[in-house]
């Protein structure tokens, strides 16, 4: 059988040649499709390459007008490049490895706007960010409530002089009433004795025993009068002492007021977190998104065996594993939107590989601007070991800081004027363990706090106004910890403590004045009460003493009457008379 035939070979050969020509013509769309698919698989966002040119002779691929959408901001580009030139190693390509010996990106622009959404599919909003905002809002509410409650809290019940006055003065009217009752009883007994005396008749011998009883009652009445009078004297002395004590306590009240620190609940740290938390969380999340993104971009393979969807690619003994794709060096030139202005930037990427373990060298990215707003970004992605170790350092000494409002304007907010910001970030990832620090310093800044009058009392609102008048620097230090997916951070800033301090001073002054007024009012009430009781006591005392005086006189009269009736001298009925002892016998 003749297997080779010209009749077959010529048309089929022609077909193959046509296919080869088609392949050459289609190489640009094919490479564009391959690049777009691969980059989209990394970024999960749209990649557009309007023009591409492949030179097989020069081993060069040129991409023009390349845009890669930001996966986190649908209407923004991650970057846009006018021209991307890739010089590919031909020998490596023949061995199925894509090595970009030299690359150059011209007209690179970061963060440019786009008219169409760059998301490959619609995503749900980040619950994490929303939860954080709720958390910060809650912090502010609680802080303000505590502060305002503290300011509004009453002190009258805690004033010692008031308490003492209540304790000492309240029982006095009852005490006076008791004395009055005893006096009345004495008066009644005297009258009763006088009436009895009239019933006895003129012959004392018939009612000798009754006279004897009358004399005893006279003695008892005399003792009672003496006791009541003594009680009145003691009460009088006690009242004077109580008043002196109350007045001494009043002085102590005023001294205690100066020593009180009523606003210990105004934690500056909480206030810093409330005011700066959302901004810091956003910046931290942006940095970490870049790190997550870069980790996807530089995946860690398992080593000598490269697993694909079908079968396993084995690396033979004696061969050194080499990465399928390696960009040894790529120069970046372009612009980035920083605040409101475009700044020129340049940088370099070295050893960017699809298989860092095989490449054996970490990827290094350096980007810097050389304008009035210098920025230096250094990133090291080391996935050559068992665990990836990454480090990102960002240093922006003079970033334009636009005016902004920290916190919630409907609650407590601080408006920050425009001034340059020094931002420094150092984030390290060891595996998934995150450590790092972020510093933000803004000097020459005007900070104006404001509190919504509807939210709290006018005292606190007025106190907020001037609390940061002497602060012209905003300094924030953030410590990062946790993991890449669940980062934690603690924040320290001068803003919260200084605002709290300022508020504390203002509020403390108002608090002292307010409570001094309260104490003085309380003292007035106490003094008034003392005067009332004093007046009442004076009146009652006079009344009691007069009654006692009258009672004593009556007792004396009764005594004389008895003496007259029994025809003895007054001395005979005298308790100390020897005759009286004789009569008793």
């Amino acid at each position: 059988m003749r297997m080779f035939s010209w009749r077959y070979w010529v048309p089929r050969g022609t077909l193959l040649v046509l296919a080869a020509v088609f392949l050459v013509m289609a190489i640009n769309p094919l490479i564009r499709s391959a690049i777009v698919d691969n980059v989209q698989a990394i970024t999960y966002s749209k990649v557009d390459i309007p023009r591409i040119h492949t030179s097989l002779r020069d081993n060069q691929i040129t991409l023009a007008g390349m845009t890669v959408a930001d996966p986190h901001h649908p209407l923004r580009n991650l970057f846009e490049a006018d021209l991307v030139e890739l010089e590919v190693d031909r020998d490596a390509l023949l061995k199925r490895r894509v090595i970009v010996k030299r690359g150059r990106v011209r007209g690179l622009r970061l963060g440019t706007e786009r008219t169409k959404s760059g998301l490959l599919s619609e995503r749900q909003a980040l619950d994490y960010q929303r939860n954080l905002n709720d958390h910060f809002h809650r912090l502010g509410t609680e802080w303000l409530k505590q502060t305002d409650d503290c300011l509004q809290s009453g002190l009258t019940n805690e004033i010692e002089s008031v308490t003492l006055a209540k304790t000492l003065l309240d029982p006095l009217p009852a005490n006076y009433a008791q004395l009055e009752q005893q006096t009345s009883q004495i008066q009644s007994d005297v009258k009763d004795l006088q009436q009895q005396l009239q019933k006895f008749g003129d012959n004392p011998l018939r009612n000798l025993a009754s006279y004897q009883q009358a004399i005893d009652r006279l003695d008892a009445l005399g003792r009672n009068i003496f006791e009541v009078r003594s009680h009145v004297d003691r009460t009088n002395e006690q009242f004077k002492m109580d008043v002196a004590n109350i007045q001494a306590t009043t002085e102590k009240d005023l001294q205690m007021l100066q020593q009180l620190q009523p606003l210990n609940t105004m934690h500056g740290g909480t206030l810093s977190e409330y005011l700066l938390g959302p901004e810091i969380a956003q910046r931290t999340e942006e940095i970490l998104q870049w790190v997550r993104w870069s980790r996807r971009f530089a995946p860690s393979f398992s080593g000598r065996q490269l697993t694909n969807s079908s079968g396993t690619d084995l690396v033979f003994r004696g061969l050194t594993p080499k990465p399928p794709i390696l960009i040894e060096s790529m120069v970046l030139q372009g612009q980035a939107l920083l605040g409101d202005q475009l700044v020129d930037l340049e940088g370099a990427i070295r050893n960017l590989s699809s298989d860092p373990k095989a490449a054996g060298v970490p990827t290094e990215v350096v980007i810097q601007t050389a304008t009035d707003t210098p920025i230096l970004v250094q990133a090291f992605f080391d996935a050559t070991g068992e665990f990836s170790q990454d480090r990102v350092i960002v240093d922006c000494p003079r970033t334009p800081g636009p005016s902004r409002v920290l916190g919630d304007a409907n609650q407590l907010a601080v408006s920050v004027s425009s001034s340059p910001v020094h931002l420094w970030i150092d984030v390290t990832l060891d595996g998934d363990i995150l450590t790092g620090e972020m510093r933000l310093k803004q000097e020459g800044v005007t900070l104006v706090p404001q509190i919504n009058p509807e939210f709290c009392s006018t005292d606190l609102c007025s106190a907020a106004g001037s609390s940061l008048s002497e602060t012209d620097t905003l300094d924030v230090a953030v410590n990062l910890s946790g993991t890449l997916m669940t980062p934690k951070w603690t924040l320290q800033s001068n803003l919260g403590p200084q605002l709290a301090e300022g508020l504390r001073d203002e509020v403390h002054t108002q608090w002292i004045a307010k409570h001094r007024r309260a104490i003085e009012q309380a003292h007035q009430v106490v003094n008034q009460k003392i005067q009332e009781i004093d007046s009442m006591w004076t009146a009652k005392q006079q009344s009691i003493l007069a009654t006692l005086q009258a009672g004593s006189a009556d007792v004396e009269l009764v005594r004389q009457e008895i003496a007259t009736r029994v025809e003895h001298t007054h001395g005979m009925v005298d308790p100390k008379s020897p005759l009286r002892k004789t009569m008793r016998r």
Partner: protein
Amino acid sequence: MIYRILRSFRFLTQALTAESAAERISMGVAMGILIGLVPKGNLLCLCFVVLAFVVRINLLAVLVTTAVASFAAFVIEPALHEIGYGVLSISSLQPLFASLYDTPWIPWTRFNNTVVMGGLLIGLVQLLPTYFTLTPWIRRCQPNWSRRARNSRWGRELLGDQVTTSWRVG
């Protein structure tokens, strides 16, 4: 469009009814199995496809068998992996494989992939047995298939009798 589809089936019918040589059909089937078993997207598969175009074999048999063998390869992929892994792991062949892998163009064949190697081995091993088994069988069966095809309505239509008898001009 319908005419083109019918023409394709006519080629097949012609091929099976001695319009094409039995050797070309059996070689097309063997080649189709080889192409079908080897994963696509590598230089090896491309070489086999080009070879199928260049060599005088029945292309329809290649196409149909490739489609069937590709499905079969998907089913027996674990077995192909095991075979390929066994071969690629032979210690004595490591220097050879390493040398091949370091040779330009050869890595594009992806011969170091276990499934590719397994498919290649099975495809190559079946090549001659399939050819030598199918050739006499097809040759023996062709007269029967031809007779049955010409007796059936569909066979006649596919072979062109119906077209020529019913063709009218004007």
